[in-house]
């Protein structure tokens, strides 16, 4: 049977709805998730199906409602907390970092926190400095959390279902600009394990690693390179913590070159961590330094040309790949 094609937002909605049908303890909480049907329509129709007990609108009180959700997770429930964007989750970072992630350790294994924090992450056009931060590396720095950042509807659904079933706190990152993206998603149920990267395009000349919407840049660059007979292998990390460096290393053993494309700020980013591990575990396989393209080392500005200069793009990725291949141009 041919796969259905559905939107990213529908894939997320299916994941949440299926898990809520399966497990009474799962509920969804956040700003505008119920009556407004979601700021980005991810939860459309869920209030109708599950009612206000399980699809819960909150006031703009991120610290407060996150704390309530975390407390409820410690006491037997399995909340999904939606942030309108991850920029606003800086307010409840205290609850995520100081309570959710540390509870199990502090209580000597007594109190876990099965909770999913999810929402769109990173930039979404000309939204200015305060609405454009990509937070993967920041959360991935925190022991006790798992961090997922998805790039397409299929992965989104399978990984969100796994996240909801996971007994540990999970950070789940989407993107405003991908909610309308369409992709094949099977009718039948499936799960994707947390912590497994995925080879999205096979190749032999260079490995390009990315995640979330920067996968489009990585795949776009691979396509450009293919026109010049350069075969890039493109890996989607999908999970940032735990980081599946084994898959990357296996690829590098073949290509001997690694370029990482991410929307993080450069300092202590996902690429920093990955580059460290690959040089340590795969030093003998590398024919060139591991290189990366990140966002600029600055807050994102509003003007369109400054947005373009800030973000990784296909031309710069192509150029960098050629550099690690020691090709002229």
């Amino acid at each position, binding site marked *: 049977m041919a796969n259905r094609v559905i939107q990213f937002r529908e894939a997320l909605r299916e994941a949440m709805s299926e898990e809520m049908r399966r497990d009474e303890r799962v509920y969804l909480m956040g700003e505008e998730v119920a009556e407004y049907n979601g700021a980005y329509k991810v939860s459309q129709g869920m209030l109708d199906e599950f009612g206000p007990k399980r699809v819960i609108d909150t006031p703009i009180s991120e610290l407060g409602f996150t704390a309530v959700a975390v407390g409820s997770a410690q006491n037997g429930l399995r909340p999904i907390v939606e942030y309108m964007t991850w920029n606003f989750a800086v307010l409840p970072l205290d609850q995520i970092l100081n309570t959710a992630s540390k509870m199990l350790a502090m209580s000597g294994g007594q109190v876990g926190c099965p909770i999913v924090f999810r929402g769109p992450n990173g930039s979404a056009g000309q939204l200015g400095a305060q609405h454009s931060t990509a937070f993967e590396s920041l959360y991935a720095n925190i022991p006790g959390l798992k961090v997922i950042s998805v790039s397409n509807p299929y992965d989104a659904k399978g990984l969100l279902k796994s996240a909801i079933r996971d007994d540990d706190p999970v950070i789940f990152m989407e993107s405003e600009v991908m909610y309308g993206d369409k992709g094949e998603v099977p009718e039948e149920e499936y799960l994707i394990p947390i912590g497994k990267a995925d080879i999205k395009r096979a190749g032999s000349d260079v490995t390009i690693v990315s995640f979330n919407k920067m996968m489009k840049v990585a795949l776009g660059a691979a396509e450009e390179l293919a026109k010049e007979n350069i075969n890039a292998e493109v890996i989607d990390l999908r999970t940032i913590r735990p980081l599946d460096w084994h898959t990357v290393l296996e690829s590098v053993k073949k290509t001997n070159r690694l370029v990482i494309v991410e929307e993080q700020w450069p300092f202590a980013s996902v690429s920093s961590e990955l580059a460290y591990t690959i040089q340590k575990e795969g030093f003998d396989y590398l024919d060139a330094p591991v290189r990366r393209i990140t966002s600029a080392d*600055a807050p994102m500005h*509003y003007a369109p040309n400054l947005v373009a200069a800030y973000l990784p793009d296909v031309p710069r990725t192509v150029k960098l790949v050629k550099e690690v291949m020691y090709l002229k141009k």
Partner: protein
Amino acid sequence: MSTTTKESVKFTKETYLYWYELMLLLRKFEEKAGQLYGMQKIRGFCHLYIGQEALAAGCMTATKPDDTFITAYRDHGLAIAKGITPKACMAELYGKATGCSKGKGGSMHFFGVKERFFGGHGIVGAQIGTGAGLAFAEQYKGTDSVSLTFFGDGAARQGMLHETFNLAMLWKLPVIFICENNNYAMGTSVQRTSNVIDIYKLADAYEMPGDSVDGMSPEAVHEAVARAVKRAREGGGPTLLEIKTYRYKGHSMSDPQKYRTKEEVEEYKQRDPIEYTREKLVNDFKVPESEIEVINDRVKAEVDESVKFAEESPWPSDDELLKDVYIQQDYPFIVD
């Protein structure tokens, strides 16, 4: 509630003329911004002030230029009222180098420190505390300036409000907390956010004076703000004013507005402060229609010029990317 009514205080013809021109300017600027957004000249999020103009008008006449304003992302109206030129504001909406934030802020982040306008802030509720900080500095420096700190009804539900109220009362900071209650936070009505619907009562817990004010009336806004400002200047500390207003347009440019009825919007438009002020000028002060027309034309010209200015202005140069991040000029950025 305010005990004074519109009728009990007399304002001069000059005041009404000022209010009328200012409110009309804000209205026309926003109408133009809405149009330009539709034409994709303006990008990102864009939140219009249409309907809330009386608030800016009353606050302006009740304060002096040295008093600071700080607000959220719905900042065009207050920025222009405070004296940032429509040209600089329109250029900012375009993202041009001549904008009030050099094209780096956009709609949500207008700044004009020269005009004592400390921004447009995007994280709901954050500026409640920052506004108290502006007041703290005035108190520290020993000036008699006060901080007008604006936030929405939705923002009133952030924990920031409570911590700040407590600190502001503890230290008797010269800050006026102005809740612009337009009854909605995106699609959520005030009624759905709390057991306490009268936001001004939140002041009670901190023994802070609190008042509910008719935000469709520039007179009522002026009186309430003037009282609070006087108290703050004299060392009496903060006040919370819940100013009841209404936004005629959606939350931002992409809001289907299913959460309210057309009738509700119409009801407020019946009490439009610009129309009210115009009638006041014509009926009570016998200002001839021709004089009103002169103002209308002047406002239209000013808005048109702002668009022309924005259109003709240059983009920021690409090397602005790593500028204005640190004051330090030779900061060693990571450049891969």
